[in-house]
């Protein structure tokens, strides 16, 4: 059973859930895998910590919780502080460079790759596309999902009229991810 566990973390309002949902959808609908997404709201509904767990597997998923993720996608320092220690040894941390400072709390052998996604988003004209940039970045770095699958999933998931903007954001993140990977 090939299973990848991902945790996406950030603040309410950053689009954490949408980010995770696009990853899950791309895997589940467009790549024919099994995927389960679990949302973890912070204790408060507004403005506080928010995270999502995605399990992608070649088989049926029973217990859907992610304890020691293979990949972390992080958009806030809090999220980093909270989740970095739980990363699987040798796992991967993908983080927003300006919002997160990585330190020694990651497990042995972990790799951490940053992206200035907020700046990119601001350049694209909407801070809100941060999360889509992170999706692209995830796909680009991990290669777990094809660009086509992610592209379709994004198209399905964003509000009508914002597709273009989001496609640009996706590409931006994806390309940045591909390049980083090649490094």
């Amino acid at each position, binding site marked *: 059973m090939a299973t990848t566990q991902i945790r996406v973390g950030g*603040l309410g309002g950053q689009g954490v859930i949408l980010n995770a949902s696009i990853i899950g959808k791309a895997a589940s609908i467009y790549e024919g895998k099994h995927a389960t997404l679990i949302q973890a709201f912070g204790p408060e509904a507004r403005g506080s910590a928010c995270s999502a767990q995605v399990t992608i597997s070649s088989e049926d998923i029973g217990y859907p919780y992610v304890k020691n993720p293979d990949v972390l996608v992080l958009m*806030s*320092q809090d999220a980093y502080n909270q989740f970095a220690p739980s990363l699987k040894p040798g796992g991967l941390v993908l983080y927003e460079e*300006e*919002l997160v400072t990585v330190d020694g709390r990651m497990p042995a052998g972990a790799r951490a790759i940053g992206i200035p996604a*907020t700046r990119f988003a601001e350049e694209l004209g909407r801070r809100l596309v941060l999360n889509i940039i992170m999706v692209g970045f995830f796909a680009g770095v991990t290669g777990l999902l094809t660009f086509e699958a992610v592209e379709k999933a994004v198209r399905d998931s964003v509000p009508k009229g914002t597709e273009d903007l989001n496609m640009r954001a996706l590409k931006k993140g994806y390309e940045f991810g591909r390049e980083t990977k090649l490094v």
Partner: protein
Amino acid sequence: MTVEDTARKGKGTVFVRMEVCKGCSYCIDFCPTHALDFSKEFNQKGYHFPELNRPEDCTGCDLCGLFCPDFAIFGARWKDLDEKRQQAASQVKL
């Protein structure tokens, strides 16, 4: 940050707790003398916060303080600050 840290250019000044600011820009947009601007940096939460870029214009009216939904800024008149300072000093002396 205390009174001494701020050069006295206008009639008043502001005090900002930048770490609790959420960058809503109320203070900036509704400062009657347009004395504030957003910072270039982000705070830990990822927000730009206000900076007193035109201290000479600040009257210390504290409208920014009344507007701020996050209790992150307030303005004061030098006059009042001096008074308080003296009061405080006299209390310390007692």
